[in-house]
C-alpha cells in the first residue's frame, strides 16, 4: 500500500505546531499502525530528519501508553482496540491518514503526538485505592464471598487502561468514564464500602480541578473506549456521588 500521512508536528509544549505531509510506500496490511510509523521514522532518520514522537510501550493493548487520534477517532477506525493493535489492513492503498495527538485542556502536548496525561494519576491519588496496609496480615481471601455477578462487573470496570481515549473523544473533554470506572470497581465490592463516601467526593473534586469538562451523556467515550468500559459506570458514579453528597 502507498499512503499519504498528515501528521501533527510540534517541537515542544510552547511551539504552535502544524500538520505536515509524508508519503510512505510498500506498507504491508499485516503491519500494525505503530510499525508503519516505525518504518516512517527510520526513513526520516536516514534522511537526517527528526522522527515523529509518539507514546507506546507494550504494543499489545494493555499498558495504555499509546494514544493517537487517527482520522478523527481515538485509536483509529477499528473498534475495541488501542492504536498499537490497529492493523494497516483497516486502510486501503492511496488513503490519506490524519494523525493527531489526543487533544484536551487537561492533556497538554509534550512533543508531536505525545501528551501529558498525569492529570489521570492525580485523580487516582485523590482516592483510587482502598486504605489497607500492605502487611499481608489481612483476613483470609475467602473470608468474604462476593457475588460472582458483582465481582465480574467490578472486574469489567477495572479493565480500564487509563489511555485517555474517552477524554479525547468527548466534545467536552470529560473524564467521567475514566473516573467512574475506578469508582465503580470499588463500589461493587464489599472492601470498597468503608471509604465509598470520601472516595467519590475526592476523586470528582480532583477531576474538576484538573480542567476536565462536564458529561453531557453523548456516549462518544463508550464507543471509542478500547476496553468497552460501559456508560453504566457513569450512572453508578452519579448515584454514588449523590449518596455521598447527601451524607456528606
Amino acid at each position, binding site marked *: 500500500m502507498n499512503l499519504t500521512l498528515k501528521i501533527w508536528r510540534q517541537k*515542544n509544549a510552547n511551539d504552535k505546531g502544524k500538520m505536515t505531509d509524508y508519503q510512505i510506500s510498500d506498507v*504491508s496490511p*499485516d*503491519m*500494525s499502525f505503530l*510499525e*508503519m510509523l*516505525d518504518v516512517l521514522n*527510520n526513513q526520516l*532518520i*536516514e534522511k*537526517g530528519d*527528526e*522522527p515523529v514522537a509518539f*507514546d*507506546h*510501550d*507494550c*504494543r*499489545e*493493548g*494493555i*499498558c*495504555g*501508553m499509546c494514544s493517537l487520534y487517527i482520522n478523527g477517532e481515538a485509536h483509529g477506525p*477499528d473498534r*475495541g*482496540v488501542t492504536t498499537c*493493535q490497529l*492493523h494497516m489492513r483497516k486502510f486501503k492503498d492511496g488513503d490519506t491518514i490524519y494523525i493527531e495527538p489526543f487533544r484536551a485542556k487537561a492533556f497538554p502536548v*509534550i*512533543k508531536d503526538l*505525545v501528551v501529558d496525561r*498525569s492529570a*489521570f*494519576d492525580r485523580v487516582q*491519588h485523590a482516592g*483510587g*485505592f*482502598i*486504605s489497607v496496609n*500492605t502487611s*499481608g496480615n489481612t*483476613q483470609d*481471601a475467602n473470608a468474604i*464471598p*462476593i*457475588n*460472582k455477578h458483582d*465481582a*465480574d462487573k*467490578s*472486574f469489567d470496570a*477495572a479493565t480500564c*487502561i*487509563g489511555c485517555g481515549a474517552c477524554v479525547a473523544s468527548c466534545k467536552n473533554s470529560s473524564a467521567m468514564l475514566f473516573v467512574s470506572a475506578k469508582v465503580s470497581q*470499588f463500589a461493587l*465490592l464489599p*472492601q*470498597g464500602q468503608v471509604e465509598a463516601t470520601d472516595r467519590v467526593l475526592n476523586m470528582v473534586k480532583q477531576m474538576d480541578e484538573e480542567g476536565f469538562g462536564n458529561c453531557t451523556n453523548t456516549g462518544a467515550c463508550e464507543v471509542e473506549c478500547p476496553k468497552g468500559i460501559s456508560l453504566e459506570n457513569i450512572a453508578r458514579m452519579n448515584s454514588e456521588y449523590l449518596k455521598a453528597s447527601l451524607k456528606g
Partner: protein
Amino acid sequence: MALDSKIPQGPLAEKWTKYKNEINLVNPANKRLIDVIVVGTGLAGGSAAATLAELGYNVKAFCFQDSPRRAHSIAAQGGINAAKNYQGDGDSTYRLFYDTVKGGDYRSREANVYRLAEVSANIIDQCVAQGVPFARDYGGLLDNRSFGGVLVSRTFYAKGQTGQQLLLGAYSAMNRQIGRGKIKMYNRHEMLDVVIVDGKARGIIARNLVTGEIERHSAHAVVLGTGGYGNVFFLSTNAMGSNVTAAWKAHKRGAYFANPCYTQIHPTCIPVSGDHQSKLTLMSESLRNDGRIWVPKHMKDVEAIRAGKLKPTDLAEEDRDYYLERRYPAFGNLVPRDVASRAAKERCDAGYGVNATGEAVYLDFAAAIERYGKEQAHVKGLDENDPKVYLPLGKDVVKTKYGNLFQMYEKIVDENPYETPMMIYPAVHYTMGGIWVDYNLQTTVPGLYAIGEANFSDHGANRLGASALMQGLADGYFVLPYTIGDYLADDIRTGPISTESPEFDEAEKSVRDMIDHLVNNEGTKPVDYFHKKLGKIMWNKCGMSRNEKGLKEAIEEISELRKEFWKDVRVPGEATEFNEELAKAGRVADFLELGELFAKDALLREESAGGHFREEYQTEEGEAKRRKEFQYVAAWEYKGEPKDAVLHKEDLVYENIEVKERSYK
C-alpha cells in the same frame, strides 16, 4: 570477593520466621530520617515503593513510562500461583517449593524458593483486601486454574488480565502513599547510573525524558525493580521500552550479574509475520488448560495446508499429531514452558510447521468448546448431542475464560480462533538470570537491592507459569521491606546524603559523556538497525538451542557490532529535549554489552538446564541433560569488556529436595 548468600541457619521451614525474629528493626521515628530510591514500578518496584512508604521511609520512585501503572507487569496474562490449597487437591507450601525447584531444573536457591512459597498465600489475601477483582465461582469464592509443570490447581486469575489487575492493585497502594506525600513519583525518568559512596549505593543519576535534564538523586539505599532483559533479542513479548540499562549500570558499578544465559522462550506466542515486526505477542499459558497443541502427522497435509488447499479443521483426528500428549502423557499439554518450546521447535525443524515460514504449530480449542458446550447443554436440560445447541454454549464458556486473548489474536492475525485453531510459535518472554542477590535481596554492592525479574534467585533455569507475578509481589510486599530494614538500621544517624560529592560528579560526568557522544556521533544508521542485528545474532546463536561453535561466533559478532554501533549510529535531535531515539540508543548500547556476556555464560555452561539447551548435552530422547559439576550459580564480575568478566561461583546445595532427572512423561 567470595559470594556469601547469607542463608539463615536452621531447618528450611523455619529459616524465614527465625530470620525475621532476629534482624535489626528501625523504629518508626527513625524511618522518617531515611530515604530509599526505588527504580521501576512494576509488581516488584511498585509493591516495594508502597510498602516502604507505608512503613515510614521517604521513597522516591522512578519509571520511564508516563505513569507507574504502565510498567510491563501489566501485560502478564494468565495468573498468579499461591499455595492456598482452596481446591483441596493436595497443595502445600512444600509442594509449591518442590514444583518451583524442579521446574527450574534444580538451578535455584532452596531457601529463597521456600520463602517465596511460604509468603505466596499472603499475596492473595493482600490483593483481595486491596480490591483486586480475581475470578470467582458461583458460590462467591475464589476460582483457580492449572498451569504448566504442576499437578494441582493453584493459579488465581482475573481472566487474561491478571498482571493488569495486580499491578493496578500495587499502583493503588502507591497512589495512597503518593497522596500522603510519602512517595515522590518521577514519571518519564530513566536511571542512567547508580552512585556509590564509600562502598555503598547512595543514589542514582537519572535523565528526565521530557526535558533531557540530568538529575542527581540521593538516598540511603537503592532498590532496582527494573525487570528483565528479553529485549536483547529485539523481538520478544516484552514492552518496547523494557531494557537492561539500570541493571547493567549497576553491574558496571560492582553488582555481579548471574546466569545471564537463562532465558525463557515461551511456547505460545503469535508467530512473526514479517521484517516490519516490532514485538511479539504472548498467548497465555492458561490457554493450554483447554487448548490442544498439534501439527499434521503427514507431510502431504502440511504441504496442502501451507498451499491453502486444506483447512486444519478438515483434518481427521487420526491425521493429527498431538505431539505433547504423545511424548509426555502425564503432563500432556501442560508440560513446563522450556519443554513445550523445544518440542514445537523439534516439529518445525522436522518440517511440520503449518504457516508460510514453517514456524508455527496449532493450538486448538475445538475439543474444549465441545466439552464445555455439552456440559452446559446438560445443565440447561438441552440436547447435548446437537452441535447447533452445544457449540454456541461452548464458545460462550471459552469466551468468559479467555475472551480478551481470543480478541487480541483475532486483531493481530485476522482469523477467528473460535472457528479455526490458533497458530503459535515460541518467543522470548522472560529472563531467569539477573543481578546476583543474597537471601536479603541485596546485590554485591551494599545498599543496592534487586527485586522481581531483575534478580536471579528464584526460578533457576526455567520459570513456571504464574510464578513471575508471585515473585514480584513477594519480593516487594513481604520480603524486601524486612530485609532492607536490617541494613538501614545502621543508617539512622547518617542524615541526608549530599549530592554534592566527587562520586556524584563522576557519575554525572560519565552519563553526560555518553549522551554527548551519542547525539554528536556523525553516523548513518538508526538505532533499530543495530538492535535488529543484535536480535538476529541472539536468536540464531543463543536462542532455543545453542552450541559451542555458534556461541563463539556470537561473541565475535556482537563485539564487532558494538564497535560498529559506536562508530555509525545516528541519533537525531538534541540531548536537552524529548528524544526517544537517544533513550533507545543508550539502551541498545547496554544490550550490546549484555549480549556478549550472555553468550559467554552460555558457552561456559557445558550442560543443558531448563531454558538453556546446549545441543552437545542432551539425552537420547532429546531432553535437557544436566551435569552435576554445573550445579552452581555463575555470577559475573564486571572488568571492562564483557570478555574480561570474571566468574564467581555460588554452589547450589539441595538439602530438602532430591535432585533427579526432570521428567514430565
